[in-house]
């Protein structure tokens, strides 16, 4: 199968005051077109570094990161990013925040068409009527939805989500999971989702990649079977519980708290 995102044998070290800090060593991640891969791993193992590589904000010391078979040498306008911190611009309205990427990347849309597209996206995530509000008037979950719209406004080929729901309460988070499924159906994208939440990973993604502790390599890959429309109830089926157990065990291995091999 043709992979849209192809990360092979990537090695990277940050140079710090106390010498080089190896962060990635032997990282392999492949995402087919339209695929959605979740990446989980111990805290500080290099997950955000991985997103910076895919975004072209960082060039690896060794190995290859390519999108559409083309090696990445710098930032390209066809990515959208959202982080745990929604980083909305306080001096702009929600609508103008969502429109920000179109001020940078070339677009065929007229101003009116762009605004209409932004409104459509906002409505898709349930933010109708909030176009003219300031970010400070929105709750954390609403800000995160607006940030998602901004990441999608220019129809990026690759969507990079770095723990976008990490700072939200459990109910808001489950709301946003369902919104993500809606968005994916309406606005297809190829995505990488970094998360700390194993339930989130199996609910949203079609493949979960477990990274080892730092320096991170690909330790384990779990394919999530396609069961059609996913609902929250699916998280409580025996299949889902088995997948969660496997992933939990892999995380413990990554953290060095359990020996490799199958859980008892």
């Amino acid at each position, binding site marked *: 199968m043709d992979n849209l995102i192809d990360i092979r044998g990537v090695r990277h070290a940050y140079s710090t005051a106390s010498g080089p800090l190896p962060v990635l060593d032997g990282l392999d991640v492949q995402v087919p077109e339209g695929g959605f891969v979740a990446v989980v791993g111990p805290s500080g193992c290099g997950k955000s570094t991985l997103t910076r590589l895919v975004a072209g904000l960082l060039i690896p010391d060794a190995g290859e990161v390519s999108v559409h078979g083309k090696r990445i040498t710098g*930032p390209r306008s066809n990515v959208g*990013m959202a982080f745990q*911190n929604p*980083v909305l*611009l306080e001096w702009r309205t929600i609508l103008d925040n969502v429109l*920000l990427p179109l001020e940078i*990347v070339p677009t065929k849309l007229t101003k009116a068409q762009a605004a209409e597209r932004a409104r459509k996206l906002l409505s898709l995530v349930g933010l109708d009527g909030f176009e003219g509000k*300031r970010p400070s008037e929105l709750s954390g979950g609403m800000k995160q939805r607006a940030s998602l719209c901004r990441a999608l406004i220019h129809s990026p080929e690759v969507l990079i989500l770095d723990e976008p729901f990490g700072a939200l309460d459990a109910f808001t988070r489950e709301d946003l999971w369902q919104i993500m499924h809606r968005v994916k159906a309406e606005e297809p994208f190829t995505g990488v989702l970094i998360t700390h939440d194993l339930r989130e990973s199996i609910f949203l993604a079609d493949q979960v990649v477990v990274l080892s502790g730092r320096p991170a390599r690909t330790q384990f890959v779990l394919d999530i079977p396609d069961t059609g429309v996913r609902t929250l109830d699916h998280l409580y089926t025996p299949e889902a519980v088995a997948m969660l157990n496997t992933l939990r065990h892999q995380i413990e291995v990554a953290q060095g708290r359990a020996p490799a091999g199958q859980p008892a």
Partner: protein
Amino acid sequence: MKARQVLVPLAAVAIFLVLWEALVWVMGWPNYRMASPSDLIPAYEKYWNLFLVMGWQTLWRTVAGLILAVIFGTALGMIMGFSRTMRDALYPLLVGFNAIPKATVVPIVALMFVGWHDFNTVLIAFIISFFPIAVSVSIGLSTLEPEYRDILRSLGASQSTIFWKIALPKTLPEFFGALKVAVTLAFIGTNLMEIVSPHGRGLGALFDSGKTNSDYPLMFAVLIALAFLGIVLYYVVVALEKTFAGWADRTV
């Protein structure tokens, strides 16, 4: 603007003047110790044209110094905010320079450019007021969360686009805070120079002539006029802040 926002400060000023008058009256102070507000009215009546001319001189030179301070301070703040190396290199110099009491710089500059009244006054106003602006811009830029930068950088935006679209507006609240401090400092600079330089101009020179002629009410009248100009400039900055950084105000 609500009536309350105008009336409350005015009432505060009126109460202050009444208390001042009462204090001087109760203590029975003579004019050379402390003039009272009622003594100032004759001074304003007698010299009103001087107050206008010299008040204007003080005002425009202060504003000119401030504008230079904003331009230079912002540029310096940008250099230090974006480059770690430049920050490490420039901070000690800047702090050392700022630690020199400006009262000692004034006579030096006055001698250096003797006779160039406007130039050396503007220069001192500038020297004394650029520091807080440079520091605030540099801190504003260097503490910008990396995610803000990455949002635009991942789309291929240039450094200058990131500066104009994100870094600059995000720094504006700090910038205006520093500008309020700079306004007061610039006034101090202008007046120091006006008082020190021989045959100076501006309200500082008027103060000096009051001193020479032992005209105490005139000296106090100058102080009040300076305070008034300071308040006017301060509110100009507040109005600019409301226009350009009003979004940062969260008080309802």
